[in-house]
């Protein structure tokens, strides 16, 4: 059951080790961000203003009879410096509240903090941006694009999320990325990276970084809003392995439909998820009572190949189907609820989720909004 809880929890809850180290790292990160913002304050004449954005939410989950709650806030700081440099970072602070003995006993809370990324981006030209520091692992699309709580359609991360993102979804190193080709009918984007291991590296800490190299390449067709891509990673920490993946993202102009999916393969096994959301905006427009509603469904499967210690994947073949409803209230507030059913040879169980999320964005100091 412990695994299920970890697997259904947001990325910040995937490990519970190295708490003191985690706290220190978060405080260091926040201190750096504050320092940078302070230095930016000293130059008010610059045209760009640092912004703080992100999501805040309250999540509730009931899985196999165990209920837990997670108040979460994940601020993102973006600090432009000149025309070529941007410093950005995201931290996640959350409380994990559950009954002491799973299903019985009083509720207890555990605080988690995670430095998701803190990176310096140097834009060399329109085709190349160099990234230094701690960055989200660019394996497929979930980690980089869909992990914010106010973006993803279902609160549970996919089962295969941890394939390719074993160190909590972040790496410390250097990355190059950009739009290699940009035509009216198609665009080619790429990302390559190398990351080093750090002292906190293990499968449970979410401040770890593994020695790894990899990349992702995608082709985007703007007129169809269709993107296809693939990922590769050579994991060179502990058990060396090749990890590969593929993804699709399609949002046709002809319908308020959002289709996304991923496939991933590693030594541990392989699996996929496919998700579709449909905004009912055709019923009175996107701001009508019904038009704010968006049903969503996801199917996913994972096939275990062999046991690899610390891979955070189910120990047996697992399937899960989820159905959810998102309601987009004004002012960036969203209500979400979903029901899922997990099937495996170990257990079949229900997964219920509900969430209230709010997306915020404001300048780093008063007056910046003018």
């Amino acid at each position, binding site marked *: 059951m412990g695994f299920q809880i970890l697997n259904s929890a947001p990325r910040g809850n995937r490990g519970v080790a190295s708490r003191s180290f985690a706290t220190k790292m978060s*405080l260091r990160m926040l201190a750096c961000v504050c320092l940078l913002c302070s230095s930016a304050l000293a130059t008010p004449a610059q045209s760009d*203003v640092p912004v703080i954005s992100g999501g805040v939410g309250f999540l509730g989950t009931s899985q196999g009879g165990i209920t837990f709650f997670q108040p979460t806030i994940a601020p993102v700081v973006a600090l432009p410096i000149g025309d070529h440099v941007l410093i950005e970072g995201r931290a996640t602070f959350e409380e994990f509240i559950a009954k002491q003995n799973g299903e019985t006993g009083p509720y207890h809370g555990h605080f988690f903090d995670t430095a998701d990324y803190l990176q310096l981006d140097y834009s060399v030209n329109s085709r190349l941006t160099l990234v230094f520091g701690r960055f989200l692992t660019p394996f497929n699309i979930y980690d980089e*694009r869909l992990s914010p709580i106010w973006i993803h359609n279902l609160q549970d991360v996919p089962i295969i999320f941890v394939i390719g993102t074993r160190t909590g979804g972040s790496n410390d190193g250097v990355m190059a990325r950009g*739009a290699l080709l940009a035509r009216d009918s198609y665009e080619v984007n790429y990302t390559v990276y190398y990351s080093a291991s750090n002292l906190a590296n293990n499968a449970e800490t979410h401040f770890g970084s593994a020695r790894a190299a990899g990349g992702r390449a995608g082709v985007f067709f703007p007129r169809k809003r269709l993107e296809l891509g693939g990922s590769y990673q050579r994991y060179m920490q502990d058990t060396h392995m090749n990890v590969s993946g593929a993804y699709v993202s399609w949002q046709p102009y002809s319908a308020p439909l959002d289709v996304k999916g991923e496939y991933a393969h590693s030594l541990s096994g392989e699996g996929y998820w496919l998700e579709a959301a449909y905004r009912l905006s055709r019923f009175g427009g996107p701001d009508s009572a019904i038009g704010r509603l968006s049903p969503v469904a996801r199917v996913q499967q994972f096939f275990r190949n062999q046991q690899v210690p610390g891979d955070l994947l189910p120990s047996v073949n697992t399937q899960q189907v989820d159905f959810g409803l998102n309601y987009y209230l004004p002012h*960036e507030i969203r209500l979400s609820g979903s029901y899922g059913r997990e099937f495996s040879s170990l257990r079949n169980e229900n997964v219920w989720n509900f969430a209230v999320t709010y*997306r915020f964005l404001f300048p780093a100091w008063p007056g910046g909004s003018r």
Partner: protein
Amino acid sequence: MSMLRKRALVAALLAMACACAVAGTSAPPSQNRHTTRKQPATASATAEGEKRFRAHCGRCHNPPEDLSAREARAVVRQMRVRAMLSAEDEKLILEYLAP
């Protein structure tokens, strides 16, 4: 750091987010979003920027509410890296968000 201080930190961040939300919704219209700031001279660029926004950014999220020109520059700079926008996309989307 004690558990109490950690919880206080989370509470403070939540309060800050809520306060900013309230402040944002009560801002005068002149500071508000791009729909009220379009200039005739840049109408075509704004329309093209909206198209680019829908093609790239709109695949994952809607445009943020109450975005000033200065904020927009930082946001688009960030999204250029995240969404791997071309320089032209960045320029046009900025034109749309902060004409």
